[in-house]
C-alpha cells in the first residue's frame, strides 16, 4: 500500500496557507487534528516556530498563541535549551480527553449532519469506484481491508478506515469527492476513534467495508454504496450514544 500519497494529501490540507480571521483557533485546530490523526506522531518535534508560522502564513505571535493553547490541553510540550523545541506529547491520556471534549462539544444534530455528509461522500465514491477503480486501487483497497480485520486497537483501525475511505474516493476518479473525503477525515475522523474503542463496532464496520470492497471488485456499485453507508450509520449511532453518556456524566458531576 501507499501510505505516503495519502499522508501527503492530508498534510497538504492541514498545512494549507490561511488567509482568514480566527487564525489562532484555526492553526490550533489544524495542529490538534494533525496530532490526533497521527500525521504528527507522538514524540515528534514540530518545525521551528518561524518556519511553521511562514507555512501557515500567520505571524509568529499567532503561532505562539496557538501552541500555548495546545500546551494547555496537554497535546504538546516545550523544552528549553540547546536540544529544546516543541514536541508532540504522548497521545494516550491527553488525546483521549481531547477527543471526549470534542465529542461532547458537538450537538447530536451536528453528529447526524456529519454522518449524513459522510454517507453522501463515501457512499457515492464507493458506487463510482465499483465502475471506475483501477487494478492498482483495487489492490490497495484489499490490503487496507486486510489491516482492518487483523488490528485489535481503536487507533490503527480508525487510521486504516480513513485510508480506505480516501482510497475509495481516489478510485472514483472524482477530484471533488477526493477533496471532500480528505476534508472529512481531517475534521471528523479523530472522534471516530472513540466509536472504535467498542470491539462490536469495529467488527460491524470491518464486515461492511469488506463487503463494500468485495462489491467494488465485482463492479456492483449499489451494493458497495449500501455497505459503506451502513458502516457510516453504525459509527454515527455509536457516537450519538457515547456523546449522550459523556453529557450525562458531566451533568451528574454538576449536581
Amino acid at each position, binding site marked *: 500500500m501507499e501510505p505516503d500519497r495519502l499522508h501527503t494529501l492530508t498534510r497538504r490540507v492541514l498545512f494549507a496557507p490561511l488567509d482568514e480571521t480566527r487564525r489562532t483557533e484555526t492553526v490550533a485546530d489544524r495542529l490538534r487534528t494533525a496530532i490526533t490523526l497521527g500525521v504528527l506522531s507522538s514524540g515528534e518535534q514540530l518545525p521551528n516556530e518561524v518556519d511553521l508560522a511562514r507555512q501557515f502564513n500567520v505571524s509568529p505571535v499567532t503561532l505562539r498563541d496557538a501552541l500555548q493553547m495546545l500546551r494547555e490541553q496537554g497535546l504538546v510540550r516545550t523544552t528549553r535549551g540547546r536540544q529544546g523545541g516543541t514536541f508532540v506529547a504522548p497521545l494516550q491520556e491527553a488525546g483521549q480527553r481531547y477527543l471526549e471534549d470534542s465529542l461532547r462539544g458537538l450537538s*447530536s444534530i451536528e453528529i*447526524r449532519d456529519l454522518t449524513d455528509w459522510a454517507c453522501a461522500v463515501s457512499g457515492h465514491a464507493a458506487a463510482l469506484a465499483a465502475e471506475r477503480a483501477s487494478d492498482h486501487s483495487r489492490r490497495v483497497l484489499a490490503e487496507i481491508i486486510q489491516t482492518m480485520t487483523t488490528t485489535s486497537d481503536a487507533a490503527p483501525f480508525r487510521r486504516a478506515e480513513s485510508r480506505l475511505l480516501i482510497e475509495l474516493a481516489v478510485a472514483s476518479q472524482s477530484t471533488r469527492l477526493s477533496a471532500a473525503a480528505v476534508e472529512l477525515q481531517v475534521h471528523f475522523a479523530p472522534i471516530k476513534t472513540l466509536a472504535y474503542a467498542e470491539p462490536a463496532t469495529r467488527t460491524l464496520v470491518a464486515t461492511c467495508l469488506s463487503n463494500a470492497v468485495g462489491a467494488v471488485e465485482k463492479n456492483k456499485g449499489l451494493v458497495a454504496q449500501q455497505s459503506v453507508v451502513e458502516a457510516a450509520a453504525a459509527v454515527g449511532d455509536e457516537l450519538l450514544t457515547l456523546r449522550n453518556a459523556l453529557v450525562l456524566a458531566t451533568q451528574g458531576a454538576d449536581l
Partner: protein
Amino acid sequence: MSGRAAEVDQHMVDVVQEINLAVATIFDQLQPLATTTVAVLGDHTLDDELANALHRALEQPCRDVLATIDTPITGVGFVADIDRTGPIGAWMLWWIRSGAAIKQKQHVLNRESDSFYDYSNAQWFREARHGTAPFITSPYIDAWGTDSLTMTASIPVFTGGTFLGVVAADLKTENFCDQLIRILQRGEDITIVDHEDRVIASSIPVLTPGIPIRGFLRRSSQTVGDRHPCAYAEWSAVRFNPSPNS
C-alpha cells in the same frame, strides 16, 4: 392499544407538563410584543408612519428578548399580513442575535427577486394565521432565513376580528431541544414527536431532532406504546414497546 393508552402513568404526565412549560416560556416572551403591536397599529392599514411607529415601539423589547441569558431565541419580530400592508407589500420587522451583537435583519421582500422571502407560505405563518393559536414548528432547514436547522414559534396578532400578522421567534434547534432532552432524561425513555411522528426531542440518543421515528422502530423491532398529547402544535409524548411479533 386503547386499553394501554388509557393507563398513562404519572411520570409521563409530569414530563409532558414540563415540556409544555418550556414551550410556553417562549410564547410568554412573544405575547407582550403582540400586545404592543395591537396598541400601535389598531385596525389601520399599514403605512410608512405606522411602520416607523411600530419599529420604535418594538425595537427595545425585541432586543431585550434576544439579550436574555441562555435563551435559545436567535431572531424575533413582527411579520405583517400581506393583505393588509397595501402599497408596502410584504413587510416585517426582525432582529437577530449574531455572536454578541443584536441587529436588525432585512429580508428580501421584493416579489421579483429570486431570493424573495415568501413568508405567507411558511408553516409558522400559515398555522398561526389559520389555527389562531400559538404554534411551534418542528426543526426545519430555513433556507430563506437563517440557513440553519431552526424551529420557529409564532403567535397570531388580532385586533377584534382583524388579523394583523404574527409575532414570531426563531429558536436554535440544538439549544432548545437540549433543554427538552434534559427534561426527558430524568426518567425512563420518553420521546416527544410532532403530528407526523417526527422527533422533537428524545432521551434515546440516536433519535435526533427532526427525523421520523419509523426507521428506528423498524430497526429496533418496536412499536409506539403509550401516547400522551402535549399542549402545542399537536406534539405528543410517546413510549416504545417491543413489537408483539418480534
